[in-house]
């Protein structure tokens, strides 16, 4: 807490796209190796109802999968599809050995409880890392299939010249799929983590003491420069659409300009955590495929073989 980091004149912007490109190259090599073994990884994406809302995500994922040699099939179901029908679809995909990962695009229609659907995905095909068993594994420090956004944010921190063991980290936002998993991942790596949220008395008091700040709330301009310790790393997970005189823009939860004056490193939005998240999804796809390959071999192995 007292140890100060080297103050930077202006923060270095972290290039999420190039981190993602490096990860995708590793994924491509692994996907090729799996394909040689007869296990070419293949993802199925499920969207329900209004496609416009998730279309851009699906398109990004499809393009990135294609570039990494991971199969990708986008399926759309009408808004009136019931939970039972979707559960049947998932049963079929869970049982199909040619499907290695299942993505459930959000938003879903109001009558479909998202958690129920996530629970219905087989944990070995849970490439989004949303199944309770996947989250439980994260808590227990088994880092197999983690929730993509949280893993991406932590992967970005790992690229910086900071020792994570003993690092003071503040996580702003305690959502179940981003804030909390980030906290548990970092704790597993030896960081001292403080989790803040809307009931926290003084977020600034905590964030100013931190060597690294993660923000995942969904409110533009929430974190400003005076909330950051000079030289600290700021990982911005927010994605907000705001209206400006120059038209609509996508921004994060941090006020980029004031934070960049103080921080040592900062992720831009867009171009920071977002692209890395897609790369983690593909990495999870190859990981899931390998786990399924091992399980199939175990199940069919004879004691002598």
């Amino acid at each position: 807490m007292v140890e100060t980091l080297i103050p930077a004149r202006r923060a270095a912007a972290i290039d999420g796209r190039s981190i993602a490109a490096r990860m995708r190259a590793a994924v491509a090599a692994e996907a090729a190796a799996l394909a040689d073994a007869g296990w070419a990884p293949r993802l199925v994406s499920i969207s329900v109802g209004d496609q416009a809302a998730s279309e851009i995500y699906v398109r990004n994922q499809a393009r990135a999968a294609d570039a990494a040699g991971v199969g990708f099939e986008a399926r759309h179901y009408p808004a009136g599809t019931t939970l039972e029908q979707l559960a049947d679809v998932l049963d079929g995909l869970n049982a199909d050995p040619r499907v290695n990962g299942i993505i459930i695009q959000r938003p879903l229609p109001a009558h479909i409880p998202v958690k129920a659907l996530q629970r219905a995905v087989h944990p070995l095909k849970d490439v989004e890392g949303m199944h309770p068993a996947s989250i439980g594994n994260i808590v227990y420090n088994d880092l197999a299939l983690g929730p993509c956004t949280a893993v991406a944010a932590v992967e970005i921190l790992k690229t910086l010249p900071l020792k994570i063991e003993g690092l003071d980290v503040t996580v702003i936002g305690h959502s179940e799929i981003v804030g909390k998993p980030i906290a548990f991942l970092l704790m597993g790596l030896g960081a001292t983590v403080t989790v803040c949220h809307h009931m926290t008395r003084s977020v600034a008091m905590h964030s100013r003491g931190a060597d690294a700040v993660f923000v995942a709330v969904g409110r533009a301009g929430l974190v400003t420069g005076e909330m950051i310790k000079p030289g600290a790393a700021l990982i911005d997970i927010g994605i907000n659409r705001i209206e400006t005189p120059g038209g609509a823009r996508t921004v994060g939860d941090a006020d980029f300009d004031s934070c960049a004056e103080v921080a040592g490193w900062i992720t831009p939005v867009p171009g920071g955590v977002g692209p890395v998240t897609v790369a983690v999804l593909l990495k999870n796809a190859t990981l899931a495929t390998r786990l399924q390959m091992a399980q199939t071999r175990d199940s069919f192995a004879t004691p002598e073989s």
Partner: protein
Amino acid sequence: MSAKIIDGKAFSAEVRARVGEQVARLKAAHGITPGLAVVLVGEDPASQVYVRNKGKQTVEAGMESFEHKLDADTSEAALLDLVARLNADPAVHGILVQLPLPGHMNADAVINAIDPAKDVDGFHISNVGLLATGQKAMVPCTPLGCLMMLRDQHGDLSGMNAVVVGRSNIVGKPMAQLLLRDSCTVTIAHSRTREIETVCRQADILVAAVGRPEMVTGDWIRPGATVIDVGINRVPAPEKGEGKHRLVGDVHFESASQVAGAITPVPGGVGPMTIACLLANTLIACCRANGLPEPEGLTA
């Protein structure tokens, strides 16, 4: 200033009495008796004491207690077989496999073989994930007991700064989850934390669960803070005679109680709450298994 001593014995007796009332009501209204199966493998003396106490208190609360004692050289397959039978037994609503297991067994595999709905210890990977994702779960007994004591002290915990010292799977991590769910700002400190005293001094609520005798001293504590001491350590007590021991917590009680607002003693603090919460979890599991409403306020 001297801290208020939080009497875990008295509070746990209250909780057990409430469980007992609910059990009696279940029997009268529905003819159902909650059942808890405890499995002990080997002859670990501390485990034997725990299991005996659990059995006794289960019966006192009006529940059925099923004890299964297996030899230390029992195979893992035989234990898994027993777990499968207990999973299928409708009279058993809660299953507890006493840890530690002998070295030749994979504890994770055994725990994850328990039906999550009957996992009253809350250690099954699905329950861990359900708790982490804010869904209905079985919550581990020790942190649950701590939370109930904190709620009893403070009522609403929201906005309080909580520091949990220790990041174990069975106490530190679930404790952090529960405090977050009650809207505390939570910091988890551990062996790699720099300047741990400074971190602890920010806490309105300090939970110590590291297993190091009297590590947390009075100067780590913010005046008026509530201190929950989960540690149970046996240390030599030559003043009681040669070879004698006494139990101490992770908190140095004498100095801490000069500064804290409220503090749990060891023994007689968190310890008794753990079994009370086990009984409460068994009752809850029984209600869920029978599609009955869960009693309010007994668990988190």
